[in-house]
């Protein structure tokens, strides 16, 4: 009976954990993979891992753990499928001037440009610029240094700007 009571409590705690963090995981996966459907599959995999290791994750590190696992799952998903580069406008084909785009178009243009970035640079940009984490937090999650993260983001922003302006980097 004690085991069953413990199991019910565990299930309830995990459900609350899932509810509080699902948006963060799905959003990160969405920006990494570009499609909501792919992000759902990746997020499901992330939370099933979290369920398996629930109780073993050190308290206070759940957020970092989730981000790390989300990125790893996204890397695997990207390796399994090739991103359709044809969906992304070729540089020079349709230069987009920021002032001429509506907000929705700007977001879509940026999302498409994000998918051109190498995985590690994309991860650094997503965590820092979209998820709003600090440079040190990003470095901790990616297992690198703050200097490396700043360099990656600087390079990535330069590429994004050039792609969005229609000029080859």
């Amino acid at each position, binding site marked *: 009976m004690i085991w069953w009571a413990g199991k019910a409590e565990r*299930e309830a705690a*995990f*459900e609350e954990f*899932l*509810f509080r963090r*699902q*948006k963060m995981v*799905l*959003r990160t996966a*969405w*920006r990494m993979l570009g499609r*909501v459907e792919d*992000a*759902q599959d990746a*997020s*499901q995999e992330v*939370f*099933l891992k979290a*369920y398996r290791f629930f109780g073993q994750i050190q308290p206070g590190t759940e957020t970092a753990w989730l981000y790390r696992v989300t990125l790893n799952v996204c890397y695997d998903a990207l390796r399994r499928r090739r991103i359709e580069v044809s969906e992304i406008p070729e540089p020079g084909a349709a*230069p*987009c*001037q*920021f*002032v001429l785009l509506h*907000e929705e178009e*700007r*977001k879509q*243009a*940026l*999302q498409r440009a994000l998918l051109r970035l190498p995985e590690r640079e994309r991860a650094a940009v997503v965590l820092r*610029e*979209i*998820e*709003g984490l600090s440079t040190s937090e990003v470095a901790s999650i990616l297992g690198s240094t703050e200097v490396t993260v700043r360099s990656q983001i600087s390079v990535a*922003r330069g590429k*994004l*700007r050039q792609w*969005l*302006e229609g000029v080859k980097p």
Partner: protein
Amino acid sequence: MTWRDEDLDAAFRGLRDEEPPAAALTALRARVLDKAGRGQGVRMLFWMGLAGAAAMLVLVLLSPRRPAELASLSASPIAAPQPPPFALALHRPAATRVARVAPPRTPKAAPSEEFVRLMTDDPDVVILWAVDSKGDLE
């Protein structure tokens, strides 16, 4: 340059503020809870089966032998070792055992005499039959 840093930051803010579709969140939650529950059930069944098999094994190993098994063991007597053939033939019951005699000295047999030495069940008794050349027993 048409995309300034501020423009890029504004676009990033737009992505940050854009919430994932509510339907996608609901579906994700349902799928995770469904799979997690099913996986837990399968694992539980597996461990229960393993525990049951282990309990059965322990019961079999620790269970006492049945009386029938014990009876069958005692019913099969251990066969007595077979004595040598001629000792059997010369077996004398204890009551008719020959009195102890001095160890016989093997007599100097005449060239024509032969002796047959017979062992009995009493190690102190040895029977010597003298046989002459004619074949008569003395």
